[in-house]
């Protein structure tokens, strides 16, 4: 397939575009890369205050790790969430923001989204590095779990890449997509167990007199499984359920296939529309 041949030999470009993203990100700011750590820390501080201190949300005790800390419980979910959130936002801007490049040079445009995803994964690795150090200090022996952590990162990166591909081209044709995504991200954030443990979600609920299996529906969201899997590995120090891992892998493959398909359908007139 000629499309695949095109991608071969573009690794150098992919690496260069990723470096451009990374190098350009914190230029002109005094603290530079420290921001990528200060941001989640500020979030953790605020959420801890609101949800742990004011609302008295009780974090579960890590099983079998025995860890009991709201901040760490939150962070273990916040890191994969950030990759998702930043990934969608990156996707929205990756084509629209590079109009100049797209109109003047030819290269496989998917690379813009791929390099954006790659740069976010690098940021995530830094965050995870710091998180692991904190966890070690807190007495959580995460080191043996790191290979599994990498597997989870890879699955999530593919998932995010697929979603970002769809958003990147759709946003060229409809600029509303970015506003829709902003709302959707808020909804998803609170319907995923990040600031609260999943046991707070009732198994059944009655809506207009009809009983619905709420927890089942809630768990259909792949983000719920992603967040739980990261938390299992980092906070609880146990294997995530096998079915969960299969489930998110299927979602990732699905997102990738749909993403590449939508992209190839819609990128014909990118240079004219962007």
């Amino acid at each position, binding site marked *: 397939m000629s499309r695949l041949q095109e991608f071969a030999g573009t690794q150098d470009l992919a690496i260069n575009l990723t470096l451009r993203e990374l190098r350009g990100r914190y230029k002109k700011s005094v603290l530079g890369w420290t921001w990528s750590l200060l941001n989640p820390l500020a979030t953790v501080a605020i959420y801890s205050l609101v949800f742990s201190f004011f609302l008295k949300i009780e974090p579960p005790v890590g099983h079998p790790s025995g860890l009991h800390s709201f901040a760490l419980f939150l962070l273990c979910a916040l890191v994969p969430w950030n990759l998702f959130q930043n990934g969608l936002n990156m996707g929205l801007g990756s084509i629209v923001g590079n109009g100049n490049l797209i109109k003047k040079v030819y290269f496989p445009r998917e690379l813009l989204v791929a390099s954006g995803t790659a740069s976010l994964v690098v940021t995530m690795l830094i965050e995870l590095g710091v998180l692991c150090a904190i966890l070690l200090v807190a007495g959580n022996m995460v080191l043996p779990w790191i290979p599994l952590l990498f597997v989870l990162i890879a699955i999530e990166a593919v998932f995010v890449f697929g979603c970002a591909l769809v958003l990147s081209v759709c946003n060229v044709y*409809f600029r509303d997509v970015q506003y829709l995504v902003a709302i959707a991200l808020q909804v998803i954030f609170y319907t995923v167990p990040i600031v609260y443990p999943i046991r707070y979600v009732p198994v059944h609920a009655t809506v207009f007199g009809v009983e619905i299996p709420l927890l089942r529906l809630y768990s259909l969201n792949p983000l719920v499984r992603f967040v739980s899997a990261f938390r299992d590995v980092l906070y609880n120090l146990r294997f995530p359920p096998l079915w969960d891992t299969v489930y998110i892998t299927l979602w990732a493959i699905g997102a990738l296939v749909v993403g590449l398909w939508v992209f190839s359908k819609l990128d014909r007139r990118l240079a004219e529309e962007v």
Partner: protein
Amino acid sequence: MEHAIVVDDVWKKFRLYDERNQSLKAALMRGRRARYREFDALKGISFEIPEGETFGLIGENGSGKSTLLKCIARILRPERGTITTQGKISALLELGAGFHPELSGRENVYLNGAILGMSKKQLDARFDEIVDFAGLAEFIDSPVKNYSSGMYVRLGFSVAINVDPDLLLVDEVLAVGDESFQRKCSEKFAELKSSGKTIVVVSHALGTMRTLCDRLALLEHGNLVDVGVSGEIIDEYMHDVHEDRISDGEFGVRWGSGEGRVEHIELLDVKQRPVSTVCTGDTVTFRFHYSVDEPLEKPVFGLAIYTLEGVHVTGPNTRDAGVVPDQLAGTGYVDFVVERLLLTRGVYDLSVSLADHALLHVYDFRHRAFRFDVELGDPPEQFGIVALGGRWDCMPLEVGPA
């Protein structure tokens, strides 16, 4: 011979949006995205470019030549038809596209090189050459946002030209930088040409195209009019432009306060017959018919001759010649008689003006209001703009051994 580029029945449509509306609400309410008309930018273009040829695309603005070049570069995709290319393509459409302003020149060379399809290894090998060519060795580690626009373009050009493409696509960027940089560029082009690279050029500079290109394609409103040897196509193009003028009547821009007007311009041959084609060395008269409402004090007539590319060839006026009347009224004509027209073969435009003595107040200015052709004549000089009509003398001082 192998064909480097085969363009086969290429059609390209553009959408002209009546109202550019990218909002979902508008789309849902109307049941579709936005109202648009389709416009054919290319209508079934076919031609082949053999390997190693320098090929030019000419035509007026909107003829589709840049669209075609972008289709060859794969930036735009045609609706119908195919374009097959052999080898690595480098397109010089906009220099420095993709430069990141916050990154240093060095980082941008690697980034831009990668975008143009070079590997890290190739870039490492050519890095010094690229920087030398751009003449930016001492600035290479500062961010490109601090570069002047000239430096920016030079670096962009240097990367693009050093990509070592099999196929180079160039759009109107031959004239970048100062004179010494331009000379370097021409040398580089000549080098690429002689090393057998295929080059496709889009330009309005017909003179450059005549000498640079082996063959040309003439486009008009998205149609391919003709493909052939450069000189012939340019002559045909000039002829078309000339025909247009006769059908259009008058053209060009006109301004001025209007108290006095140049109503009509004529070019007369030696027998005082109106013509539009003369030969180098002919005796010609430029006649300007004027009409003046209120008497004008010391008015000045002037004319200017331009080449089609816009080079100002000459600009005599009655004040410099010392033949200003004290007063001008009514109607009449002024002649500018040239004993020997020393312009070489080509198409020229004539501007004419009527102004006050200080040349500050313009009564009437008719810019490029008259077009005429000059054919090969006597002196039989054909290059450049001016025939000097000089004489060649050959004086052997010593006769060598028989």
